[in-house]
């Protein structure tokens, strides 16, 4: 598990702000969890990992490990399965309405 420095988190928050993303740092039982509204947990982990790797290249912070990315899941009882109704599903639903 990687330890995220305050400098690293500040950099992520600034980056999120520049992109118009409202982000908060929430205390968690282990380390810290970055939460950005409107972005799925898995995507946030991916973004976090990429950002860490980028900063690591600049020798400002260690990267987030692969293990941490894989273990990043939604809170218990929730799932991140995308349930958006697709165009195909909608077309089938409306089929009989049009005779």
């Amino acid at each position, binding site marked *: 598990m990687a330890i995220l420095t305050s400098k690293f988190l500040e950099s992520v928050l600034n980056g999120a702000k520049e992109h118009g993303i409202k982000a908060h740092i929430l205390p968690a039982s282990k380390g810290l969890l970055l939460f950005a509204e409107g972005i799925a947990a898995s995507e946030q982990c991916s973004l976090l990992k990429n950002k860490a790797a980028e900063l690591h290249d600049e020798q400002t912070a260690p990267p987030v490990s692969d293990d941490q990315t894989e273990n990043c899941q939604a809170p218990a009882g929730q799932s991140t399965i995308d349930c958006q109704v697709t165009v195909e*599903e909608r077309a089938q*639903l409306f089929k009989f*309405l049009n005779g």
Partner: protein
Amino acid sequence: MSSAKKTPPIFCISSGKGGVGKTTFSVNLAAALADRGAKILLIDGDLGLGNVDVVLGLQVDHTIREAVEDGRDPASIILEVQQNLFVLPASSGVPEMAGLSHEDQHLLTNVLDAIIKDFDLVLVDTAAGIGDSVLWFNQWAQANIIILTPDPTSLTDGYALMKVLASRHGKKGFQLVVNNVKSKKEAMSTYTNMATVLKQFLQEIPSYLGPLPKDSKVVEAIRSQKPFLLAAPDCQAAKAIRVIASQLLEQEGI
């Protein structure tokens, strides 16, 4: 019929879309089941904008909110509406309840588990949408009734709700009611189409509870704050709801 001290069947009534007749259906189904001798608890699951009490013309002094937030004895909140029919009312204008935090879900489980064993069957009239409370009640219940109308918005929202419940929460065996139809043929066509889409995309085959016809007596009953089953017991909608009630009782062996 006697009350068994075991967990009774719990039916959650949802729709996705609002305004499709969920609360009217729930109230009248509860009344029809109670008429058949089953002791029914109707829970107003629209925790932030409850309407069951409004449809029934009840005077509500206490709500589920007080049981969850203040630890009030839930038995003191339940209202007896008629013989065998009891209502657990919800608050109105309390968005915090609609959100249903994890802590509230835990407290609500304790509150409901403490009271439902006194009943033969429990119905939950949920809020519209796919918010936390809707999903929670649908997970808590063993059976899920989805109300549809033959409108594109209702079909889309009802399907979206079932997709979330099936994909994220592993729910199966949805039971469909088609409300506000001009004919049985229209209702059957709506059900068949939905069943086809559910089978094709979610590998799920729902069952058909039946149609509820468009009926002016339903609107009149809502305005007089009475179940149409009592206000117009011979209307087409009342006959249809009795058929659905009989079907559910037979299904549950009550």
